[in-house]
């Protein structure tokens, strides 16, 4: 016998359709019968002066029917190793840069060689799926054009070679240098689909 709610479906009690979240340790998360495998960050990454993918930030995602907005957040660890370590971050949806996701972060400037600035970086954006035509650079994509998998990810770079930064890095542990499991810092990715 079918459930009563199969015959008389009730509206959801909130506008959150689903939340996908995981640590970039290679895990697979299954939500609503769809599986999502996160990247597996096993080492730290030095940024260069060209944009490159931030390891562990990528997720392949197709929003459920009736999704109006998709929130993407990537929490990662930053270390500025030269001066303030000025570095830039941007979100890319299926190969197109989302312009207003650009942000630069840096520590305070120091020319004394003691580059200690290590803090959490956050790349985030909310895509608007209620539009009638796409403008991905502005974060707008019609739901009818996002019915299959698209890759969302973060790209990062240094300001210049004089202001180098690292990501996914813990430099210290228990009063000394960090190594192994404590040195690499695996980003956390979160997707929320709103109806």
């Amino acid at each position: 016998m079918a459930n009563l709610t199969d015959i008389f479906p009730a509206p959801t009690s909130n506008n959150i359709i689903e939340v996908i979240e995981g640590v970039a340790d290679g895990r697979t998360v299954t939500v609503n019968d769809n599986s999502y495998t996160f990247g597996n960050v096993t080492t730290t990454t030095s940024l260069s002066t060209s944009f490159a993918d931030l390891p562990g930030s990528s997720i392949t995602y197709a929003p459920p029917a009736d999704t109006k907005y998709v929130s993407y957040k990537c929490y990662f660890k930053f270390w500025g190793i030269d001066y303030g370590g000025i570095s830039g971050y941007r979100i890319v949806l299926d190969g197109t840069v989302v312009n207003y996701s650009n942000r630069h972060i840096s520590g305070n400037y120091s020319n004394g060689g003691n580059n200690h600035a290590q803090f959490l970086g956050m790349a985030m954006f909310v895509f608007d799926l209620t539009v009638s035509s796409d403008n991905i650079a502005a974060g707008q994509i019609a739901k009818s054009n996002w019915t299959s998998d698209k890759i969302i990810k973060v790209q990062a770079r240094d300001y210049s070679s004089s202001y180098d930064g690292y990501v996914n890095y813990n430099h210290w542990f228990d009063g000394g240098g960090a190594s192994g499991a404590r040195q690499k810092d695996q980003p956390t990715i979160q997707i929320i689909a709103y109806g």
Partner: protein
Amino acid sequence: MGNFSTFFPTASASNLLEIIQYVPDGRTFQGLSNNYVAPTMTNYQGTTTSYVDIFGSNITYTPPEGTRYIRYEYNTKQGGTTARSGITHYKLYVDSTEVQNAYKNFSSQYYTTYGYAEFPVSLTYSFDLTAASDDIANGKFSNWTGAKEIKWMARGYNTTYDDVRFNYNTWRDGGGVTAGSALQWNYPLLTVTAYS
């Protein structure tokens, strides 16, 4: 006459099961099936070179039935000393076992004299409750149905860099905050989210 769903309540279509969230002011937060009593904070917290529990980060949490993933998030503030860059180490524990992959180290840029850096620190992790066997060092659990304590512990790098303070405000309105006043510290925020 009530709504149909008043008499025949249905499960949410979302995979979000519950959110527990509080500041440590002694309140009781009523979850779906359990109540959670927040501790009462009365002052900021300092660090030494030994690990101590970060006040307000502890919660003994029982996930609701059907929970597959738990997001644990503790938002605090680090800084407010003359400890140069204030290098601070953070370890995550579940029932006294360290989740090694959650380890973090935060610090500001170095300065010998003006230790002005005060900044928010978000300590988050996502637990996977669908694993075939427990692997707590990697945040994976096979049978988390009862109460487990989650908390962060912290310490300073060494005596040159310790005495970092949590939830401490040095300045206010263009001047220094009066020592011992209620304005000298602020509440952290704890959030636990259960997903199916």
